């Protein structure tokens, strides 16, 4: 008998087990499938069937409002040929099969969930369907083609077979190399299904967010952190706090002070009675104003890294014009403040929290507590907003450490003030936008982006999770430093633009000094779309052309950009704004999708009012049309908050804002009417969670220019 290499690896588990004894037992243990029961049929990590006939989907992408709960279920339900409502959905634990092909870890972000799950999830479900149909066909002595799986039952003609009854027969069957997927013409749910499966729990208050999880005897914990980034604890006096009502314990936890009490209010009141002294650390004296001035200097003094160059520099003829554009730091401000519930005992760690970066948390908690990853169980929950904030691991590690050091189960709850002041911020950034104009023709676009690097900070987090555990910290930091000046997020959206000027160049200059940085809905696109689409408007005005015509004239007529722009102009009745209103337009590609928007705005007595936003999106194959519409509306209102209000400032290395009175959000009375049109497409799905955000700030700034003749080059947009 010949044994192929592949067969040897697949069939060799028992042999491998015996080989491993004496080396490292835990390293050889088969990875348990999440929520697995020996009675279930689970051909892969994603989907399982119980003998009772319940089909369960392991939700491997966090639901934070963007619709993965419904979207993932729809993909699976299509291949199981049953309404998505019939699926039982569980929040998945970590499993290697859930690792994201883009990020190399199990993570939810980058508007990638549908795009990267489209094939694998349908295949996972199709595999289960195939096994069940095959088992039933065998049992009946019929051809596979004669057996159907429909709405949770197997059918052969009029004969109904319970899927649970063929589990044992199906277990012994093998799958073909390529399980066929349903052809698009047969789709019942993809592109059609509209209901949100998580909506009911969210209108009754039953949906479980991290903050809602109950654990017997869990104490409430609050943590007092150094307000100055990078600062350290000098000393603290806990006597008044310890005497406060309901307080159980006050302890130092990794350079911060934790207060544990019977309930949150008691813990928060007691924390206010702490006397703490801090060393201000490396950012002492650093202010946003100073950082902005430094970026403007760097734009003049540094060449930076050349990121994109198209055409010959000699083509840049005519008069050079240039302008500085600026954006501030932004906090995520998820409605649910950061929180986590942690239980640590000698067997390991259990965590209940809302997490985008499940595998990063697994690694970070293991490092912080000294437990191995196999001793840590992460119970993910609904996220009360993510927007990139919950890719970070800080809030979970804090809870785990407080629980470990105090020896008590704790629910760590951040205040809104904690949340605003201890975020990982959208970088503050500057662009020196320049062009050469030769007569009525733009001959070049030359951009210098100056910003601190998210990559420099986040890469060490990624490599710590991905690379061998014995590598010293200096290696990870070294990789971060090496990668920092190549940060793709700093220039995304400035490069690969649709505009075809004779010469195009983009450079990136990294700013070293910064507050902590993170991924914020649409990341670099959030500022870079504002920079480039505002400046394009300037060039249209400079060359005496209509902003729409100028854009169309300088791009490929076959491009997706051209199509969405044309459509949005039609739907928004471009050029015919209602009396007293003015229009601005912008188009931007991000996360594989192209979005164009027209803003109708008016300005009176220095007050900007956004009346209407018309949005056209090309995001490839749509899974759930209403969720795509919702994500465009959501992205637009998120972007309008940044355009009109959002600003985090540093003084002495500390954030000056604290709560919704000084870090304001768009409210319903300021929210515009939004019309969304989905461009039909047969391309594979691309992102929808983030692409709605980037175009709205420039479209609004362009509308304000149309209304007032004033070009606002800094966010938030201020006329006064």
């Amino acid at each position, binding site marked *: 008998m010949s044994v192929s290499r592949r067969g040897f690896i697949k069939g060799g588990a028992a042999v491998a087990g015996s080989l491993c004894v004496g080396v490292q037992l835990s390293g050889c243990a088969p990875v348990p499938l999440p929520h697995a029961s020996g009675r279930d049929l689970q051909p892969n990590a994603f989907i399982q069937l119980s003998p009772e006939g319940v089909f369960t989907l392991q939700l491997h992408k966090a*639901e*934070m*409002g*963007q*619709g993965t709960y419904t979207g993932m279920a729809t993909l699976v339900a299509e291949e199981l040929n049953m309404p998505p409502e019939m699926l039982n959905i569980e929040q998945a634990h970590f499993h290697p099969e859930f690792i994201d092909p883009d990020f190399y870890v199990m993570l939810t972000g980058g508007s990638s969930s549908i795009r990267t799950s489209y094939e694998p999830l349908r295949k996972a479900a199709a595999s289960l369907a195939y096994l069940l149909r095959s088992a039933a066909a065998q049992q009946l002595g019929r051809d596979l083609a004669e057996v159907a799986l429909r709405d949770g039952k197997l059918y052969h003609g009029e004969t109904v077979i319970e899927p649970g009854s063929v589990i044992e027969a199906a277990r012994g069957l093998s799958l073909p190399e390529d399980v066929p997927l349903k052809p698009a013409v047969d789709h019942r749910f993809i592109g059609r299904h509209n*209901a*949100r499966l*998580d*909506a*009911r*729990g*969210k*209108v*009754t*208050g*039953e*949906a*479980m*967010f991290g*903050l*809602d999880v*109950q654990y017997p005897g869990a104490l*409430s914990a609050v943590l007092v952190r150094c307000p100055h980034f990078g600062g350290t604890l000098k000393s603290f006096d806990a006597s008044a706090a310890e005497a406060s*009502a*309901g307080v159980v314990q006050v302890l130092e936890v990794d350079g911060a002070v934790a207060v544990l009490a*019977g*309930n*949150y*209010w*008691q813990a928060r009141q007691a924390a206010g009675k702490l006397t703490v002294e801090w060393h201000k650390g490396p950012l002492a004296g650093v202010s946003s104003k100073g950082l902005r001035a430094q970026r403007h200097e760097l734009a003049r003094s540094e060449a930076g890294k050349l990121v994109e160059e198209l055409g010959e520099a000699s083509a840049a003829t005519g008069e050079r014009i240039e302008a500085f554009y600026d954006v501030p730091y932004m906090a995520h*401000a*998820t*409605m*649910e403040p950061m929180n986590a519930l942690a239980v640590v005992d000698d067997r390991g760690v259990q965590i209940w929290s809302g997490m985008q970066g499940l595998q990063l948390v697994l690694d970070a908690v293991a490092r912080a507590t000294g437990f191995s990853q196999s001793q840590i169980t992460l119970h993910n929950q*609904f*996220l*009360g*907003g*993510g*927007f990139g904030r919950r890719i970070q691991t800080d809030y979970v590690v804090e809870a785990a450490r407080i629980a470990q050091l105090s020896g008590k189960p704790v629910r760590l709850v951040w205040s*809104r003030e904690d949340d605003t002041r201890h975020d990982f911020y959208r970088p503050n950034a500057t662009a020196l936008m320049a062009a050469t104009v030769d007569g009525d023709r733009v001959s070049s676009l030359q951009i210098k982006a100056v910003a601190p690097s998210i990559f420099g900070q986040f890469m060490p987090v990624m490599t710590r999770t991905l690379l061998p555990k014995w590598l010293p910290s200096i290696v990870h930091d070294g990789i971060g430093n090496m990668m920092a000046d190549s940060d793709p997020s700093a220039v995304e959206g400035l490069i690969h633009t649709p505009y075809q000027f004779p010469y195009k160049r983009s450079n990136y200059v990294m700013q070293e000094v910064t507050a902590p940085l993170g991924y914020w809905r649409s990341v670099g696109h959030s500022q870079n779309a504002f920079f480039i689409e505002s400046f394009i408007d300037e060039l249209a005005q400079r060359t005496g052309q209509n902003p729409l015509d100028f854009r169309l004239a300088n791009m490929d007529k076959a491009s997706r950009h051209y199509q969405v722009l044309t459509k949005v102009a039609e739907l928004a009745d471009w050029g015919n704004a209602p009396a007293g209103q003015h229009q601005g337009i912008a188009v931007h590609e991000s996360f594989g999708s192209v979005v164009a928007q027209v803003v109708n705005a008016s300005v009176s007595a220095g007050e900007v009012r956004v009346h209407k936003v018309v949005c056209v999106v090309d995001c490839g194959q749509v899974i759930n049309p209403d*969720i795509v519409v*919702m994500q465009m*509306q*959501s*992205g*637009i*209102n*998120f972007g*309008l908050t940044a355009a009109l209000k959002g600003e985090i400032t540093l003084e002495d290395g500390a954030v000056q804002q604290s*709560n*919704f*009175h000084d870090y304001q*959000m*768009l*409210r*319903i*009375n300021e*929210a515009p*009417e939004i019309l969304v049109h989905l461009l039909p497409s047969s391309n594979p799905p691309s992102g929808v969670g983030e692409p709605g955000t980037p175009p709205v700030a420039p479209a609004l700034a362009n509308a304000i220019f149309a209304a007032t003749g004033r070009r606002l080059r800094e966010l938030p947009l201020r006329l006064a």
Partner: protein
Amino acid sequence: MASLAFTLNGKAIQLDVDPSTPLLWVIRDELAMTGTKFGCGMGLCGACTVHLNGAPIRSCSFPVQAAAGQQITTIEGLIGDSGALHPVQEAWLSLNVPQCGYCQSGQIMSAVALLESNPTPSDEDIDTAMAGNICRCGTYPKIRAAIHAAAQVVQQFDPRQSVQESQS
């Protein structure tokens, strides 16, 4: 600590608690009812909205002692004894309003109170009544549409109207 009594979703509640504790934390931490959410602690975001004798209040900045002897309703109390959703919840559900969903308990409580005092709200009325509730996911267009949709249902099922109709 003091002994306090109030009515919560129609049920008598008696508990020993620091009377300055915000009602929110009594509901969440003492009574383990988690539909009412914590967002800001300053009455700025509306995630903690509950009803005091039918009127919306921000429970995060409302000391529990002020609730003594009063009727409090939370999101859990909107569902009738039959298990049927409130028409506002039904409208929220059929229009797919929630995204992350965290603010929606508060949004719904504000909307229910609005429709109880004004069964046919204009867009301006909605702006005024709902401006205290932040939704970071920006579900505002859907919230507006759902309130208008619920208003239709609430009107149709107005008990006074049905009495008048049966008399005529």
